[in-house]
């Protein structure tokens, strides 16, 4: 029963990892950009949630109403102001610039909020649970997982059934020709980053409710997200969800064997999958 429980909890945790990953997957899919500061932006969102709940006395989930648009705005401005200048054939420019952003964000947060761990208090939601069979499911993890499924389904629908998604795919296919169609790629990329960071906002608030956080933990979140993306196959959103679940389950199973092995087990699962399926479980299938 302990094992079944670990696996179920791991699955649910995978939802959070999928939320970390969805934004990465989106911006890689649209503009081939890998954002080293992604994890720090998740942490930024958590601090934004903390500030909003503190200042307005809102429930952490209600803070999403402010955090999501705020993160989207940050994403758009960041992309148009800085990141668009790094897009091109050269890999180093986006890497270095987002590395720089990462250092700036970490130390900025450190300056404002100090290194003390913080946590958002979601009250009864944190302890509520529903017994299913022999195991108890926390309401919060279930909510997180369902949110992840909803976000991924929403992104998938947006990508394949809306004008915006069409613009994203066209720009991803061929930037110059997309420009000929009247799509300003700087704006399209701005929108993609806005959307990615909106998702990041959700991820950050959930992170901040689930565990305590401090300015230094961004790198670890980036890595979880990255692993989920690669396991699932680049540019495949449902694959990313599955990648998150595999990661979560590996960690839960690792922790079950030895509490110190939780993170290690996740990384090792990733490396093993990389060795046997270097293109991920579901290689990009949208062409």
């Amino acid at each position, binding site marked *: 029963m302990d094992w079944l429980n670990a696996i179920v909890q791991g699955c649910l945790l995978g939802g959070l990892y999928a939320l970390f990953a969805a934004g990465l997957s989106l911006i890689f899919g649209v503009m081939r950009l890998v954002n080293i500061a992604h994890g720090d932006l998740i942490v930024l969102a958590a601090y934004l949630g903390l500030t909003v709940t503190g200042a307005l006395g809102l429930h952490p989930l209600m803070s999403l109403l402010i955090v999501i648009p705020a993160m989207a705005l940050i994403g758009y401005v960041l992309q148009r102001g800085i990141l668009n200048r790094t897009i091109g054939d050269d890999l180093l420019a986006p890497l270095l610039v987002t590395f720089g952003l990462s250092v700036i964000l970490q130390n900025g947060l450190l300056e404002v909020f100090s290194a003390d761990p913080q946590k958002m208090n979601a009250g009864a939601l944190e302890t509520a649970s529903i017994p299913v069979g022999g195991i108890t499911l926390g309401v919060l993890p279930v909510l997180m997982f369902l949110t992840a499924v909803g976000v991924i389904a929403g992104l998938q629908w947006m990508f394949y059934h809306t004008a915006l998604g069409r613009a994203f795919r066209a720009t991803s296919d061929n930037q*110059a020709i997309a420009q000929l*169609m*009247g799509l300003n790629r700087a704006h399209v990329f701005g929108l993609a980053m806005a959307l990615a960071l909106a998702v990041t906002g959700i991820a950050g608030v959930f992170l901040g409710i689930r565990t305590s956080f401090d300015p230094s933990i961004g790198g670890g979140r980036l890595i979880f997200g990255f692993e989920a993306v690669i396991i699932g196959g680049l540019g495949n959103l449902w694959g990313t969800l599955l990648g998150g679940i595999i990661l979560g389950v590996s960690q839960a199973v690792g922790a079950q064997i030895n509490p110190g092995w939780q993170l290690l087990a996740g990384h090792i699962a990733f490396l093993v999958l990389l060795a046997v399926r270097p293109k991920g479980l579901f290689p990009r299938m949208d062409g």
Partner: protein
Amino acid sequence: MVEPLLVVAGLDAHYRDFQALYGVDLQVDPGEVIAIIGANGAGKTTLMASIAGLLPNRPDAIRYRNEPIGRLRADQVAARGIALVPEGRQLFPSLSVEENLLIGGQLGRPGPWSLETVFELFPILRERRATASTALSGGQQQMVAIGRALMSNPDLLLLDEISLGLAPVIIKTIYEALPGIIGTGMSAIIVEQDIGKALAVSQRVYCLQEGRVSLQGHSNQLTRAQISRAYFGV
């Protein structure tokens, strides 16, 4: 006297150190169809790309409705009513036929062209509207590329070698559709290697040779000898 729609004056174009166009002058009047001919590498595609805004230029080198557009981005040029059917078709591979057309129409410029009228022009596309654009034959792809450009209801249509790599029957079909397109009062610049076709569809013709205009004139007044001299430089 009517005001010209497009005036290209002293246009140079560069790819890094290589100069591809040297002081090209060209003019298109409203409703006029002009042809551009020239050997491979003469600079025809470069000229089209410059007008469409894919290559940056002096603002003044290209004027459209008397507005300098040489420095504008391609999307800004497109918004002003210039559409390019690029050489080699260049459809979006991850979009279906219908989506390729819709993306052409996303600027929302008013005019006669819509999904419906494009499907009337090329009925086969209606049948294949949900197909991935990569699954089409070359001729069908070219129809999508033309339809995609029409969807923006341009006032000036640029067609770059639309017969390239297509079977003669297909070329015939596509050229038969042309009057239905440019007969609507639209202006057009047609780049074409086939001199006969170029002269037949256009009122005036320009010949490019190594990045320079080597000959221009009314399509029905130029002699074969004049053209082959301008074309091959012999």
